[in-house]
């Protein structure tokens, strides 16, 4: 570590000042001359035929520029939205993807499905006019639950998908797993429900589309985690414009959590509408629109069967999952409940036989896709609830059952594709049990009991696959894109540096951590290093930020580019210092000849590169290098979370007394930022466990939780101060040894919370979110059952 600013230092963030002074610039803050405002006309029905749209009353209003509808969009050749990852059924048949027009043409399939766009002089006029657009609907029966949607006689959403089944996929060896379970000494069966969530980044999605007629060129400012992917998809699949005619800018983005990966109808329609109307068109979602349109997460219904031998070693795990994908297939919706889920069902354990069957299903709900963790929280919840329930049924300590089954030798090939490269699961379990004083829990339980309260403890040992992903591997599994990352390091003539990265920062602090890497390598102060991202006209092609990939993949690309910059810098310095290239070292902003006192300041070398008056023979002027890094494997962050709760039996209210997180993220660039990621992830996971749940009315398909009046966001008084520690096994797969930390908290925490609650109340009959009412009902149900015995 050099001067406390390099790798491993908790440096305060470079980007903070603009945010704390109100000078952050988000999409809704952008203004373009002539800009008009859009409102969408959305379906009030969960499922309906659209017979026609009468725009006339809206068009008559003062200040209304135009009203545009689906058939017009189709006539202009705008394509349907697609899922970019092809997953086939176990019988080899391709997935049954239904059509998704950015504006509905003949059918709406969820409440909030856009039907028309109104462009007007002000936001209020657009909203007034949207109310006057008359859509003639024939309501159809709706289904919102995935298991119901598979049943006979259920309403059918897409002609392409008989019985609403998108695909029926499997992984692992079924016969071997069945045999193992048949021969097991103990088999434990568990029903698992993983609740549907709405990601809720605090900044609602927005888009400002601007068509420049003179240049025949489009610009869109949008709330995206991956502006280049947005441009690629809008060009290649949606026919908005060719890539060289489309600039996507994702300025400051107020959180993403997965919801801002995807390309949604609204940004496509704003761009198209800008061309149609001749004015720049801005749309900003209301929070209710966010609930009705941002891709939801989770929503799995599963059963798990786990077998143990007489010594309590796991012999097999069999899983059946029905995954609700909503009304349309979102961009990565097929991968989330398959390759990001079932490949993690081995957890931290040596399981010789695993088989999983996943059915994905259309329903009359908002499309479901990756939300912080994406498949891995669902896998972890299933495995860790199953392990704890198994321990209780076997009468052994949940920590000991886990310890007995940990994988201890690496690399470890699981039966479900993943090859774990490194880890030390016991180290995290030891750290967490020590931190929370696990062994003396029973005395604390008694102390609570004396006060009339119920105390419980629960743990979760999670593993996830991050740093997505090796391009060839995901290509072989059906991905439509590669998952490498790019970097360009530009050394300016005076020696200052710009790093252009395809990783997008929307809270992760890249402007600081990426600069720390440059400082570590070159010794330049952080304020001489700028990180540039988020604009397809400025930054070379990149793949964006999700799946905890910006450190492991994005920074590895910067390392490669820095390697090239250093190599050329050394050539120049060696020439100017009349030394051997191999003897040049870079330290503290200087190039030195090893073993001598000869030095060249970094800026003089840079100036030399650009004056080009005295360069080695054949060397090009300038100093700017680009690199693309494609990982060779996933990375595998892992850890142990332990939660202690106290429940008031009168009200069912759960208070989290302590939450201990022991994580192995590999090497860490900035511990302060990493811990912040853990805190935020834990709170989202606690939100899933205790508070959050998207709720549809089963009969009407109406979205009940369409605002913060009914969707319960975690607030400051729902969570405790977190106790976070790190156990480090460096990742062997990338140059910095990074595993990634962005999703762990959300992945590992829900089962820890529910294991603690079920420990406290003595019954497993609680589903997420474990609201006060549900916990109270479970306590009462258990008491009545006991009384009946």
């Amino acid at each position, binding site marked *: 570590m050099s001067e406390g600013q390099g790798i491993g230092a908790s440096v305060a963030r470079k980007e903070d000042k603009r945010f704390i002074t109100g000078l952050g610039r988000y999409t809704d803050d952008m203004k373009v001359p002539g800009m008009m405002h859009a409102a969408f006309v959305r379906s009030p029905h969960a499922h309906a035929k659209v017979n026609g749209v009468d725009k006339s009353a809206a068009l008559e209003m003062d200040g209304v520029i135009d009203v545009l509808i689906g058939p017009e969009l189709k006539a202009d050749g705008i394509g349907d939205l697609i899922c970019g990852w092809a997953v086939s059924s176990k019988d080899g048949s391709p997935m049954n993807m239904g059509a998704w027009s950015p504006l509905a043409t003949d059918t709406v399939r969820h409440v909030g499905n856009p039907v028309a766009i109104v462009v007007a002089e002000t936001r209020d006029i657009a909203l007034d006019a949207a109310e006057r657009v008359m859509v003639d609907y024939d309501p159809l029966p709706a289904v919102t639950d995935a298991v119901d949607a598979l049943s006979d006689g259920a309403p059918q959403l897409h002609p392409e998908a008989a019985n609403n089944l998108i695909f029926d996929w499997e992984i692992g060896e079924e016969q071997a797993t069945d045999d193992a379970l048949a021969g097991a000494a103990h088999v434990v069966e568990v029903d698992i429900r993983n609740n549907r969530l709405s990601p809720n980044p605090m900044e609602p999605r927005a888009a400002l589309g601007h068509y420049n007629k003179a240049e025949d060129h489009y610009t869109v400012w949008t709330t995206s985690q991956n502006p280049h992917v947005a441009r690629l998809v809008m060009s290649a699949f949606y026919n908005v414009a060719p890539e060289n005619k489309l600039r996507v800018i994702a300025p400051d983005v107020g959180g993403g959590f997965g919801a801002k990966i995807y390309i949604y109808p609204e940004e496509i329609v704003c761009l198209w509408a800008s061309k149609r109307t001749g004015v720049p068109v801005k749309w900003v979602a209301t929070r209710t629109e966010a609930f009705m349109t941002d891709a939801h997460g989770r929503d799995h219904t599963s059963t798990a069967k786990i077998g143990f031998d007489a010594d309590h070693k796991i012999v097999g795990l069999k899983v059946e999952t029905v995954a609700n994908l909503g009304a349309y297939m979102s961009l990565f919706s097929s991968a989330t409940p398959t390759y990001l889920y079932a490949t993690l069902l081995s957890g931290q354990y040596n399981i010789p036989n695993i088989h999983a069957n996943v059915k994905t299903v259309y329903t009359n709900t908002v499309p479901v896709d990756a939300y912080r963790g994406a498949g891995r929280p669902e896998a972890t919840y299933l495995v860790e609830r199953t392990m704890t329930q198994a321990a209780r049924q076997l009468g052994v300590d949940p920590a000991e059952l886990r310890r007995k089954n940990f994988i201890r030798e690496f690399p470890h090939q699981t039966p479900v594709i993943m090859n774990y490269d490194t880890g030390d699961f016991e180290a995290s379990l030891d750290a967490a049990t020590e931190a929370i004083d696990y062994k003396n829990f029973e005395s604390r339980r008694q102390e609570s009991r004396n006060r009339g309260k119920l105390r419980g403890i629960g743990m979760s040992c999670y593993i996830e696959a991050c740093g997505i992903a090796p391009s060839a591997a995901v290509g072989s599994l059906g991905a439509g894109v590669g998952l490498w990352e790019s970097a360009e390091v530009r050394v300016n003539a005076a020696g200052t540096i710009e790093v252009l990265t395809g990783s997008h920062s929307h809270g992760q602090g890249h402007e600081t951590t990426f600069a720390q890497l440059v400082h570590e390598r070159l010794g330049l102060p952080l304020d001489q290093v700028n990180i540039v991202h988020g604009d397809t006209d400025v930054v070379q092609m990149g793949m964006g930020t999700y799946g905890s990939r910006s450190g492991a993949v994005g920074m590895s690309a910067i390392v490669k580019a820095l390697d090239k910059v250093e190599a050329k810098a050394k050539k120049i310095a060696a020439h100017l210092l009349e030394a051997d290239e191999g003897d040049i070292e870079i330290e503290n902003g200087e190039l030195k000849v090893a073993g001598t006192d000869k030095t060249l300041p970094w800026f003089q070398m840079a100036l030399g590169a650009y004056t080009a008056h005295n360069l080695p023979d054949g060397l090009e002027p300038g100093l700017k290098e680009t690199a693309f890094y494609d990982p060779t494997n996933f990375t595998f962050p892992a850890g142990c979370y332990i939660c202690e709760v106290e429940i008031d039996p009168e009200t069912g209210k759960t208070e989290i007394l302590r939450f201990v997180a022991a994580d192995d993220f590999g090497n860490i660039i900035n511990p302060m930022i990493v811990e912040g990621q853990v805190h935020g992830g834990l709170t989202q996971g606690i939100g899933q466990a205790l508070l959050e749940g998207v709720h549809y009315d089963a009969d009407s398909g109406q979205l009940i939780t369409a605002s*913060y009046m009914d969707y319960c966001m975690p607030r400051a008084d729902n969570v405790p101060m977190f106790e976070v520690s790190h156990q480090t096994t460096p990742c062997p797969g990338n140059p910095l040894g990074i595993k990634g930390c962005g999703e762990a908290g959300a992945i590992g925490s829900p089962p820890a919370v529910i294991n603690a609650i079920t420990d406290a109340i003595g019954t497993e009959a609680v589903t997420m979110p474990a609201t*006060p*009412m549900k916990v109270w009902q479970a306590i009462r149900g258990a008491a009545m059952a006991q009384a009946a015995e």
Partner: protein
Amino acid sequence: MHQTQYHRANSVEEAVNMAQGASDPRYLSGGMTLLPTMKQRLAAPSDLIDLRHIDAMQGVSEEGDMIVIGGATSHNDIATNDIIQSKAPGLAYQASHIGDPMVRHMGTIGGSVANNDPAACYPSAMIALNAVIRTNNREVAAEDFFTGLFDTVLDEGEIVTGVAFKAPEQSGYGKFPNPASRYAMAGVFVARTADGVRVAVTGAGDDGVFRATALEEALNDDFSASALDGKTIDSTGLMGDIHASPEYRAALIVAMAKRAVVLANGGDPDTKAATPAGTAAV
């Protein structure tokens, strides 16, 4: 929101006159419920008549043995007022638990009472304190004032100018908030008055605020939380939604009544609520 016309009234008479000239007027007090409702386009009054600047509707005063709170007094001003804190601490506590600090700076008691949201806090205090609701042309006993969900005896154009009540001997409030909205899912105000104990419940009733007479009887005999042990509330007529079933609300009413009594007796309900022995269900 839809178009509307804003008017600022400087006196009650002026406000009434402004309303008379409008096609579909609404009085705007703090606006903490009305404006979000208008933003969601669920209400579209033609005219908004702002009452917040009417001096005569501001503040807390004493008239003989009555405590009088002006209708335009904010929740924050009630929560921090010396008279309320010393003579009706349950009401100060209640006001300090409405909304959030920002909402408490704007929201007013008159607006809340006139709106009679079934999950609003004040209606419970008004009934438990046996308060009188003062309007620009009459005084109505709280028990007669609240008539149903979002419904009161107010006539068109009538303004809640204030509320008045005798200081209770003891008072307390227990609120179990809806986890999402933080409105009362069961809010119980307990007042020990010269005429006996009065217990009023908000957030739970199908028809809005109501008196829990069974709890009153128990507390008249013994004004302690343990007097409510084993008491139950009939869930018939209680609200049910995704957050709370009628049965659960019934249980919460008893639990919150206990907290209110603990507070009224000078205890700290937030830590002592579950102390009473014998309440554990398992």
